[in-house]
């Protein structure tokens, strides 16, 4: 059990960790990440890889939706742009993958400026609609410019070779994804504790007060949107490599809903929540099929003919139930539990 900590310097306040115990936990977490390929194989490893890619995308959306309080229904558009930017630059033009990843962030970022400038002048509602629109427009453009994108035929993507090192096995690709995941976590944590992160939270909590404090609402909403799209684009590129094949079909609209559900389940605005939510929702189909197999053969046969619908139903229910009953998501649950534990046996 932990009690209060005293801090003597300001640096201690700014640091991301504030105790040896916390550092130990992080160490254990890192070890687990490194050890995963030794424990899991083929399927399990690809599931964890998918969780990581999803978590990266969710952290990206969190910058926009969790921190700044703006809804995007066009996550798929920015994932598609990221995936194509990577696929075209590395596979068609033969650029080095590292440059491909940079492009996978920059192209969606530029697109987000185009979508964001007109819509961010208005209340948050409009961004939800324009991003929804852009999801359809981007798909149309990809199919229209088939000289560049290979249209509906898609582009095969190889596992990347970076500085002569080939990430060609599942385990190596997993490490690459984990590396991106850790970079994203660090970047998000740093952003969160900077003036930028505080400004975004301020806009979400009280935009008038934020403006009086000197925060340019339009500019910062745009920053949030651009940063979010950048990260989402990277996750799109990783997803493309994961699928080894990039087409617009690989990015169905349900992904955008899934991303929002992840944030709600994990806990809006929390980086750990975004990761937790991604693990939870990507693992959900596994859990449901397990639960259904427990419930006997009739339930199992329902699952075998209606899995897709049941999944959609579950997403919707999870979104509504969490918003109603546990608006702070799994992170909120965790904090409640911790508070109870710290204060036990006398909470009040």
């Amino acid at each position, binding site marked *: 059990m932990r009690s209060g900590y005293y801090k003597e310097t300001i640096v201690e306040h700014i640091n991301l960790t504030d105790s040896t115990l916390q550092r130990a936990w992080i160490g254990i977490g890192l070890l687990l990440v490194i050890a995963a390929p030794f424990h899991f194989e083929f399927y399990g490893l690809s599931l964890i890889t998918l969780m990581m890619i999803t978590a990266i995308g969710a952290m990206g959306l969190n910058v926009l939706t969790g921190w700044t309080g703006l809804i995007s229904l066009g996550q798929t558009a920015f994932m598609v742009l990221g995936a194509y930017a990577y696929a075209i630059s590395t596979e068609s033009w033969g650029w080095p993958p590292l440059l491909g990843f940079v492009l996978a962030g920059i192209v969606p970022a530029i697109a987000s400026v185009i979508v964001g400038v007109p819509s961010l002048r208005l209340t948050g509602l409009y961004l939800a609609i324009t991003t929804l629109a852009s999801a359809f427009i981007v798909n149309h453009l990809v199919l229209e410019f088939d000289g560049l994108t290979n249209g509906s035929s898609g582009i095969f993507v190889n596992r990347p070779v970076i500085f002569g090192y080939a990430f060609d096995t*599942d385990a190596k690709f997993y490490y690459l994804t984990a590396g991106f995941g850790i970079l994203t976590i660090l970047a998000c944590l740093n952003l969160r504790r900077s003036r930028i992160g505080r400004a975004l939270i301020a806009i979400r909590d009280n935009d008038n007060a934020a403006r009086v404090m000197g925060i340019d609402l339009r500019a910062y909403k745009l920053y949030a949107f651009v940063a979010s799209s950048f990260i989402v684009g990277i996750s799109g590129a990783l997803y493309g490599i994961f699928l*080894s094949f990039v087409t617009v079909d*690989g990015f169905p609209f349900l992904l955008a809903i899934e991303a929002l559900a992840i944030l709600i389940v994990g806990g809006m605005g929390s980086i750990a929540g975004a990761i937790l939510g991604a693990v939870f929702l990507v693992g959900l189909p596994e859990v449901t099929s397990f639960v259904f197999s427990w419930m006997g053969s009739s339930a199992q046969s329902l699952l075998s003919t209606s899995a897709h619908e049941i999944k959609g139903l579950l997403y919707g229910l999870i979104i509504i139930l969490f918003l109603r009953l546990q608006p702070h998501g799994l992170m909120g649950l965790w904090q409640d539990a911790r508070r109870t534990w710290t204060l036990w046996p006398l909470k009040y």
Partner: protein
Amino acid sequence: MNYVKGLAAAALLALPAGMATADQGVTDTEILLGEVEPLTGPPGLLGVAHNLGVRLALAEVNAKGGIGGRQLRLIAEDDGYVTSRTIQSLRKLIGVDKVFALTSLSGSGQALASMPIIKQSGIPAMVPIGPLPPLYEPPSDNIFVVGQSYTEGMHQLALYLAKEYPGAKWGIILQDDDYGKSLGEGIEQAREEADINVVFETEYARGQKDFASEMLRVKDAGVEVLIAGGIISENIAMVKEAEKLGITPVIATFWPGRVPEVLKAIGPASDGIYGVDYVAPIQSEAGQAFLELARKYLTEDEVARVNRYTMTGYSSTRALIEAMKGCADDLTWACTIEKLETNPPIDTGVMDPIGFGPDNRFSNSGVTIMRADYETLSFAPVGE
């Protein structure tokens, strides 16, 4: 889990992951097969029917004692036509369930995306849905494609129509994806060989529901032969729109939509529309024989869901089973692949015999041109 195994796996990291022993999925009493297809959502119409065909083939051989005393069991994974789920499901089938062979890789886009994993693992895989040329050109050792490419099917249909309606004005409406593109290529090939006068050509976005402006352009251009390159809903919308505008071009559709549901939804206006397929119509003698077989092994509800995809699923699985039978004593991937390559073509009656060769991974099935009969909600070969 045990870490000794983990360390052993680590030592193998340099090797391609997912390498499995060639005879995985085979026990003393059982052989496991796997497949991925859309079982749910609208594309389930295709996947469920296909799945029935595969199960029919397994039930038939199991009833006769299985292969070398082993019963065949199928694990079907649903991907809802979502590519990432296809990949995940394949990894599960190969890596966790450790099936011996795959009977389907879902739709054409999904199969394309699956190729790297399939090739890497070496597992024998049949591809009876959406046979696109990149799946078999160049041939991959362990991927066996059954059926006919959309391109060739369209090519034959167009040649037939060109001969039947010489000098007619053609209109072509295609979907803006790989399916539409393949059909377009087929028409191009036919145009090189026959005189086809195309007066109107357009692509529509997938999911489009309102075809009023397209059909108006068809009417305006005086189209006499219309290639309705939609799948299901789109063809229904196009034919109904033609009916509304009072135009009666010769309408040709393609096999993914050659199911009774389409005719039912269009109504009487569907009478006489052309179709093309490499699978026998249900109303034909072979089709009726197939239904008879289905009634023997499937429930009544299931028989009601039988369509052309059941036949392709059944036939391609039969080819796989015959190859495995030839390897009963040495049930390995290498042997099965070899038998698939060298076995004489397997004839199931509902489509051309299925066979492959040393450098051929495509069992090329001849196509038949058909016309719809609204009364019986079915298609019949032309000239019968």
